[in-house]
């Protein structure tokens, strides 16, 4: 039996969708997201303040940040899942093909086929009243014109591919009958069903136990290397990002403050905020014998996006008047980019 997952981007795809080799699988440029206030009268809130990112086939990009950094908003904006209160500017390209300019229907179709989405809570993305299998069948029907027994065969193969044992039986199960880890695997299978080139994953292992988290991270990395999809992984845990990502983008107050190869960033973070995140990631602050084993703290709270000067300046040990007055732009640094007037000066 041929592996149906291998043929996900296969011959049933229209010719213009065949990926060119030299363009990134996903490219976003100048992404800005503002939210209108609920009653329409209050001020708009800026959540994402001009972000450029790209990820190639077979690569993992991780967006890391704390609440308020805008990392999840970026993901939802790419996936087209933000509510009507959001005003989105900028361009999203799937294999070089701009999708923001498309008519709504086409855009939805392009996203549905080109992007698979995995959420923190797999219960939230799976319909509780439909069996896991029938939900995957449905995606196959819409995007790959597979129906009935054909669809179910592919569904079972997909479930097997994501490590669900006994896929025939599990396909008939309802989401609540599966454990958290199996539900997340099923959700990943559903995200793969349309044969996407890009998978967006929002904290996919945060709700899982440690041993299961390791399994699911393995699975995601395996899909990237075997199927050649591009993965964008949003996480608050720098250690998780380091474990799976090729490149890491650190977000702060709606901007990318550092974007570099994972190993480089973990070894020598150039931005003071990356450095603080790394220190707060527990493996980097090993316990010292004795009572005085306090953890390094980062005082203060994240500023709102769109202010004057560097948003991190109020919490930054290196901040100068210049930092407070002029917002630093991303500039090349090492194998990536950093937005800091004093890049590289922080002690790692």
């Amino acid at each position, binding site marked *: 039996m041929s592996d149906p997952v291998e043929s996900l981007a296969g011959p049933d795809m229209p010719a213009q969708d065949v990926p060119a080799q030299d363009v990134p699988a996903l490219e976003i440029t100048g992404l800005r997201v503002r939210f209108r206030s609920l009653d329409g009268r209050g001020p708009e809130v800026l959540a994402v303040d001009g972000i450029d990112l790209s990820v190639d086939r077979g690569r993992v990009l991780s967006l890391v940040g704390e609440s308020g950094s805008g990392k999840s908003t970026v993901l939802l904006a790419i996936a087209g899942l933000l509510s009507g209160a959001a005003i989105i500017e900028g361009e999203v390209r799937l294999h070089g093909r701009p999708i923001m300019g498309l008519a709504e229907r086409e855009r939805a179709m392009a996203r549905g086929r080109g992007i698979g989405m995995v959420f923190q809570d797999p219960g939230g993305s799976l319909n509780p009243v439909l069996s896991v299998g029938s939900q995957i069948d449905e995606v196959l029907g819409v995007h790959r014109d597979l129906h009935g027994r054909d669809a179910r065969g592919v569904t079972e193969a997909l479930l097997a591919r994501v490590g669900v044992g006994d896929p025939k039986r599990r396909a008939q199960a309802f989401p609540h009958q599966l454990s958290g880890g199996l539900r997340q695997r099923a959700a990943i299978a559903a995200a793969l069903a349309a044969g996407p080139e890009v998978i967006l994953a929002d904290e996919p292992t945060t709700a899982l136990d*440690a041993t299961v988290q*390791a399994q699911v991270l393995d699975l995601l990395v395996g899909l990237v290397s075997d199927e050649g999809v591009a993965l964008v992984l949003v996480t608050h845990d720098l250690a998780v990002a380091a474990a799976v990502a090729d490149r890491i983008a650190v977000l702060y107050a709606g901007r990318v403050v550092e974007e570099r190869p994972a190993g480089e960033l973990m070894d020598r973070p150039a931005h003071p905020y990356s450095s603080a995140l790394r220190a707060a990631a527990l493996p980097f602050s090993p*316990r010292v014998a004795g009572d005085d084993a306090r953890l390094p703290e*980062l005082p203060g709270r994240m500023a709102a996006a769109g202010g004057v000067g560097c948003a991190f300046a109020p919490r930054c040990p290196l901040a100068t008047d210049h930092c407070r007055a002029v917002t630093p732009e991303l500039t090349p640094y090492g194998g990536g980019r950093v937005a800091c007037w004093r890049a590289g000066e922080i002690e790692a």
Partner: protein
Amino acid sequence: MTVLAARAIHRTFASGDKLVRAVDGVDLAVATGEILGLVGESGCGKTTLSRIIAGLDRPTSGDVMLDDQPFLGADGAVERGLRHRVQLVFQDPHASFDPRRTVGRSVGLPLRAGGMGRGATRTRVAELLESVGLDPALAERHPHTLSGGQLQRAAIARALAPRPDILVCDEPVASMDVSVRAQILNLLLDLRRERGIGILFVSHDLGVVRRIADRVAVMYLGRVVETGGSEAVWRLPRHPYTRSLAASIPTGSTTWRGGLGAVRLEGEPPSAVDVPPGCRFHPRCPIAIERCRVDDPVLRSFPPDVQVACHLAE
């Protein structure tokens, strides 16, 4: 000096016609100024156990002792006059505060229940909030107007109000941003140093436990499978389950997954409804032998201060 000791705690629930053995014979002890980390995955019974120790749930059998006196009476209820000595900090501070009441009112509730007057309570609440690093003016606010980190501090202030000897913290930093997490953990570390409070720190996050606990107890399906000094256990985990858990913590290294190799666990914890015979870990154990299928291992001591329930530990 041991303040709190739990002995042979069992807790079973009826689920339909089946029996769930949520806690299946656990002994624990917490000393003055000590942090005991209780770790395990969801469904291992750690939350049930922590609720029993805090007197919120009654054990099916077993004793909880405070300074060698029974903390729980024969009927499993907290003995009169001892209630204040063990306090609990919940995982979600927004759920553990009455949304209709001010923060100050909730923090002062243990004091009012103890018969303190209105004015004295107000003063004491201000002191308590200050002691956890909060502006006393927050007492007048409602819970939803505080951030998660602020409210968790208030929850710790509330737990400190009756001057407890033992603080049970059930996942107190789960779902918090790393910078807030560090602040809360440091607060707990300060409390045990400055006040000598013993802390039972319950968490599924081994990284956190490893960082702040003095001793650790690893639970699997209602039992403690390995316990001992934190450094000794993490440095040389003897139980295969502990080894897998330890290996599951991302190290921050880009090569971490590659090193996971043989200790990577397959499958997920079975439910406490169907506890396997013999060693309860054997169906997932990478090194199980025939004896493990039939013979339930008991905790054996290893130097310096570790106990392991595994036939193959050495």
